[in-house]
């Protein structure tokens, strides 16, 4: 139900934004016509989904509790995403090798690695290997950051 409402709103916003673009005519369609039609179709489909009582029941059964968090650890997913977001935000500042090391270390600890020493070793090895693969071998200009590597 929540998802259908979000999709309905997304369709509505698309329509509003499309109206600010030149619509043209059917003979010579402008930039806004196609997305305007798509927004309208999306709102219609989402409305059907919301209004269909049988589907609504199935959807609420699926989204409520039936999603299957194994041990109520949906918060771990949020922390996991938070770590990824932090790594993205710090990539330019700290540089790829350091961010790769810290990212691996944090994720390994989050997912239940027992000892810091083991995690640090795995993080160091994987960050080093990815640095050699991407930066040295494939010559991809990844951010150097303040360590300058």
């Amino acid at each position, binding site marked *: 139900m929540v*998802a259908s409402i979000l999709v309905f709103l997304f369709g509505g916003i698309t329509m509003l934004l499309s109206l600010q673009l030149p619509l043209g005519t059917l003979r010579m369609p402008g930039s806004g016509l196609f*997305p305007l039609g798509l927004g309208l179709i999306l709102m219609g489909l989402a409305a059907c989904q919301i209004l269909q009582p049988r589907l609504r029941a199935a*959807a609420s059964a699926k989204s409520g509790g039936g999603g299957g968090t194994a041990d109520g650890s949906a918060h771990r997913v949020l922390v996991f995403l938070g770590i*990824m977001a932090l790594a993205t935000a710090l990539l330019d500042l700290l540089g790829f090798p350091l961010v790769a090391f810290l990212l691996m270390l944090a994720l390994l600890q989050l997912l239940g690695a027992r000892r810091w020493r083991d995690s640090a070793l795995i993080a160091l090895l994987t960050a080093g290997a990815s640095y050699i693969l991407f930066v040295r071998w494939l010559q991809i*200009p*990844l951010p150097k950051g303040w360590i300058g590597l």
Partner: protein
Amino acid sequence: MDVLGSFQHLLTGFGVATTLENLSYCLIGAIVGTLVGVLPGLGPIAGIALLIPATFGLNATSAIIMLAGIYYGAMYGGSTTSILINVPGETASVMTCIDGYQMAKQGRAGPALAICAIGSFVAGSLAILGLAFLAPPLAEAALAFGPPEFFALMVFGFVVLSNVTGGSLLKALMMAVVGLIIGTIGMDPVTGNPRFTFGTVSLLGGIEFVAVAIGLFGIGEVLVNVEQSAEVMEQRVLVPRFRDLYPTLQDLKQSLGAILRGTGIGFGVGLVPGPAPVIATYASYMVEKRISKHPERFGHGAIEGVAGPESANNSACQAAFIPLFVLGIPFAPPTAILLGALLIHGINPGPTMISEHPDLFWGVVASMYIGNFVLLLLNLPFVPLFANILRIPKKVLLPLVMLFCFTGMYSVNNFIVDLWVMLGCGALGYLMRKWAYEGAPLLLALILGPKMEVAFRQSLMISHGGFAIFLARPVSLVFLLGTLMFLLMPLIKGALRSFSRRATAKA
């Protein structure tokens, strides 16, 4: 183009594919694909998307040879986990679990894996011949397609894909429209005006499809796995010992018919829109069970139950290249990613591609043949080696996959904004799994969106604003009638079901 002409071109293709450079890329693609297939959680879609940046320095032919290798390599690799640990490496291997795992429990993992490799090789090779000889005449026929036909075909493709993804048709259609809307971000493909960019230069080129693919299919899957308990994270997979690796003559005899039937089913299904390998494996399994003299063996380690579906999935995977190369319209997400890769390399697939880029088309076709041979050699003796990857615990594997997604994504354009899009799509992919929404229609629509809009607007311009053009052209009309049929199918099915229920209640 006649058969002899196709044969000559195929020979030229072998000349292209057997250069040392292309052979190496074919080998890399096949190995990486097998790994991608073996690793649960990293399917061919995310696998191909991740490797696209690695092809930037290559010419288009070598790039597509490598990326296509990942696709069909993943089909081979997916069977390994299905048989050994009853976990399909990718969705097309689900049917292989049923009898493959039973065979493994009986100590016959070796023959099961070997028959997978042999069946996949035979099916892949035959399907490639089909691709080589069917694609050129189909391309000539497709030259008659104008914008209305292409538009109607794409609408048909989305509706069929939405119908066969397994979940709710309405939800799948919603995701296809969301994908089309996301595809309108960036420059208007007709006028060049910026659209929904909010003044940001980095959005002018549109939303990077690689970021969406990795987010929805790679990170979304990892996030679902992250929810699992600490015990699951710690678990190491117990890979059964291999008593013998090679199938007996009796195994081969029993499998031959299943392999050939699976090849035919897979090829036919691969030509139509939808997740072809998944449908093909299911259809093949059902056919084998139905025609078997001992259907009770199925589910208890029948080798035909492994040979048929595995052949069907490889054959479907090769046949799926026909709509991609001939029409420029992929019918499934992995080929949609390949379309994106072709566009990045400056190749616009369509009816004229075979004549304009014969080296690429025939080189890729020939490389698939070589790739299948490489995979046969690789899979038979090295299966135990690949199986060892499964011994890495998830708590180490998941961060590794994330690091690879993170680095691979940044490498595409060197834009931080792509990483944010990838993370956003990862969260979206996770929620979509929770709410039972399909990601495949969204991704396909995102990639095909600009093409569809151009075809739609050109059709209106040709007809001076009349929608009747879509009904006036016979090919377009057929596709639209087909679309209507697929849209009404759930309603008809529901009505028939309630009618039969009422009839039973009365009786």
